[in-house]
C-alpha cells in the first residue's frame, strides 16, 4: 500500500522551475532515495511534502488523505517527520529536551495540570522521558542526554535530529542528506541506523543523499531529479545503467565511483 503519493508536483520560484511535474509513490515499509545534482530540487520537493511550500501544481496524498490546506505542523502531527540538510537542532536545549520537543504532538496535558503538576501530568512527563531516552539509546545518545545540543559533535547532531524526528512516532521520515559532512566511519554507522529505522521501528524512510555507496547499499528504489524533473526511477541496477543518469549525475565527479 502506498504511504505517500505525490502526483505531478510543480514548484516555480520566480522564473525558475525548481520542481517540474514530479510524481513519486512511496510504499509503506520501504527505503527510497532521491538523488540528483546540486540544485536539482530535492530539498524543495521535501519542503512541499512537509507543507512548508505549497506546490503550484500537483497533489500530495499522505496515508490516503490529501495534505493540501494543512499547515506544516498539522502534517507533522499526522506522522511525517523530517531532518534538515543544514542541521536545525534547538541549540540551547539539552539533548533530552530536543527529543522531548519531538514528542510535542503526543503530549496533551492541559495547562492547569501543568500548573498543579498533578499525577496525570507527572505520569505523562515520566512516560515522555522514558520514551525519549529509549529513542536516544536507539541512536546512541542516551549518555549525552544532559548536554546542550550545540556542544555535540557533528555526527551526534545528525543522530539527534533523527531521534527528535522519531520521537513523533512517525510513519514516514524524510532525511535530507543525513551523512553530509560525515567521515567514512560515521557514514557506515549512519547507514546502519537508517536501516534500523525501518527494520526495528517499522518507519518508512525517504532520503536525499549524495553518497552513492550509501544510496546503492540501502535503497530499494531510487528516484533521480535533474533540473527539477524526474529523469529516472528504479532499483540500484536500473539507475546505474541509465544513460541519462550517468550523464546528469554519475557522469560528473562520480564517474570512477559507480558504487
Amino acid at each position, binding site marked *: 500500500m502506498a504511504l505517500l503519493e505525490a502526483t505531478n508536483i510543480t514548484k516555480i520560484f520566480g522564473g525558475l522551475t525548481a520542481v517540474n511535474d514530479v510524481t513519486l509513490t512511496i510504499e509503506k515499509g520501504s527505503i527510497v532515495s532521491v538523488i540528483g545534482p546540486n540544485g536539482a530540487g530535492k530539498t524543495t520537493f521535501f519542503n512541499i511534502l512537509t507543507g512548508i511550500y505549497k506546490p503550484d501544481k500537483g497533489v500530495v496524498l499522505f496515508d490516503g488523505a490529501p495534505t493540501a490546506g494543512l499547515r506544516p505542523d498539522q502534517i*507533522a502531527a499526522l506522522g511525517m517527520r523530517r531532518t534538515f540538510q543544514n542541521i536545525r537542532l534547538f541549540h540551547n536545549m539539552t539533548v533530552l529536551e530536543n527529543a522531548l520537543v519531538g514528542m510535542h504532538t503526543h503530549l496533551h496535558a492541559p495547562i492547569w495540570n501543568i500548573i498543579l503538576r498533578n499525577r496525570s501530568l507527572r505520569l505523562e512527563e515520566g512516560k515522555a522521558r522514558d520514551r525519549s531516552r529509549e529513542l536516544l539509546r536507539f541512536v546512541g545518545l542516551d549518555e549525552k542526554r*544532559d548536554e546542550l545540543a550545540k556542544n555535540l559533535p557533528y555526527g551526534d547532531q545528525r543522530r539527534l535530529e533523527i531521534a527528535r524526528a522519531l520521537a513523533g512516532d512517525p510513519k514516514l521520515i524524510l532525511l535530507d542528506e543525513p551523512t553530509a559532512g560525515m567521515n567514512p566511519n560515521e557514514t557506515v554507522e549512519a547507514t546502519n541506523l537508517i536501516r534500523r529505522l525501518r527494520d526495528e521501528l517499522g518507519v518508512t524512510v525517504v532520503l536525499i543523499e549524495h553518497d552513492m555507496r550509501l544510496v546503492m547499499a540501502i535503497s530499494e528504489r531510487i528516484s533521480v531529479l535533474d533540473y527539477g524533473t524526474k529523469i529516472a526511477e528504479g532499483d540500484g541496477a536500473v539507475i546505474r545503467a541509465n544513460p541519462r543518469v550517468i550523464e546528469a549525475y554519475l557522469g560528473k565527479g562520480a564517474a570512477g565511483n559507480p558504487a
Partner: protein
Amino acid sequence: MAKSTPQTGGTGAWDQLVGLIGRGPGGYVFLSIYTLVTSLLLLLNPRTNLFTDIVFILFLLLILAIYRTKVHVGFKIALGVITLGFVMPYFGTLNPYYIDVATQAGIFATLAMGLNVVVGFAGLLDLGYVAFYAVGAYLWSIFSTPQVGLMISGATPIPSGWFYGFILLGLTVGGVFGVLLGLPVLRLRGDYLAIVTLGFGEVIRVLAVNLDKPLNITNGAQGIKDIERPPLFFADPLRAIFSSFGRQLDNNQLYQIFFYFMVLVVVLITILIVSRLKNSRIGRAWTAIREDETAAIAQGIPLVRMKLMAFAVGASFAGAMGVIFASKQLFINPPTFDLLRSIGILTMVILGGLGNIPGVILGAVLVTLLDLQILPRIAEILRSAQKAGWPIPSAFDPTQYQRLLFGLLMILMMIFRPEGILPEDRRRQELHEEDEEIVEDAAEAEAA
C-alpha cells in the same frame, strides 16, 4: 545563528565562593551567620541611612545566597520563612521605607517573570508589556471608586471585598489583551515585532489619557485617586501578634505589611507557575520556537497557538499585578504606565538573565534597588559633598543624572556580561529537576 562564544555557565566567581563554603557544614554556618548578622543589624538600627541601605541590600542578596548554597532544602525553606516571613515584616514596622522597597521589588519581580515568558521563553520581543499592567490597574481603579459612576451613570463602587475576585479578573482581562496584542503581530519578527508592541503600549497609555471624554472612563491625565484597599481580614490577629512583640500598629502600617505579604505570595505562586510551565510541553515548545521556528513547526508545534499562549500567559501576570498595584498605591495616572516602565521591566529581564527565572527575579530586585535606593542615595551623597565645599560644579545636580548613571551601568553590564548576571543554563536545571524528583519520590515513599 549559534553564539560564537561558548557559555561558561553559571557565575564563575560566585560558584568558586560557593565551592569554598558550600559543602558540608560550611554552608550551614555561613548562611546562619549571614542571616543572623544582617537581621540583627536591620532590627537594631532601623533608621534610614546609607549604612542601613547597605545592610538591606545584603539582606536581600541573602535570599540569593540561600538559593545558591548547597544545603538541605528544608534548611533553605526555614531560612526563607525566617527572613522574608518574620524579619522583613517586623523591620517594616520599624521603618516603612524599606518594606515598601521590598514590596515594589516583589511587584517588579512578578512583572519581570511575566515578561520573561514572552521574551525569554518564547523569544518574542515585547516593548509594550506595561500596557497589561495598566489594564489591570485601571480595572480595579475604575470599579472600586466613584469613577465607575462617571462611566455608567448611577453605578456605585464595588465593595472592597471584591478585590480578590478582581485579581482573577485582572488575570483574565490581561490574558485577553495579551491575545489582542498577539494576533496582529504573529507574522512579525525581531525589530518589527518590537515596534508594533511598543506602539500597542503607547496606544493603551494614550487611551488612558484621552478616555475622559465624551464618556469619562479613565479620568484622563488627572488619574484616579482614593482607590479602594481590600478589607483587612487579618487585622486583629496581626495587631495582636505585633503587640505581643511590643509594637502597636496603625492602619497604614498594617496595610504595608498586608501588601508585602500579598505580593510575596503572588511572587511565590508566579515562580511556581512559571517554572512548571517552563519544564512542560508548553515551555519546551516556546523555547523551541525561540531557538528555531522552522524546526519547531517540523515537530508539529502549532506556532500561532503557542505564541498567543505566551502572550496571554505573560500578560495575565501583569494584569493581576496591576490590580494589586493600584490598590496598594491608592492613586494611578497614565505616566505610571509609560514606555520607560516597559523598558525598565525589560531591563530587569535582560540584566538578570534572559529566560532564567532566578536571574530575572534578581534583575528585578537589583533594578528596583538601584532606582529607588542606590541612585538617589548616591545623588544625595554628592549633594552633601557639594554643600561641604567639594569642587563639584554647582550646576551639577546629581539627581538629574540618575538616568545617566543607570544607563552607564547597563552599558557596562552589556559589555562585560551580556548574557545577564545569572544566565540560563538548562543543564543545571536538569540536575535540579532530578533533585526535585528524588525529593518527590522520597515524599511519596513516606506517604505510602
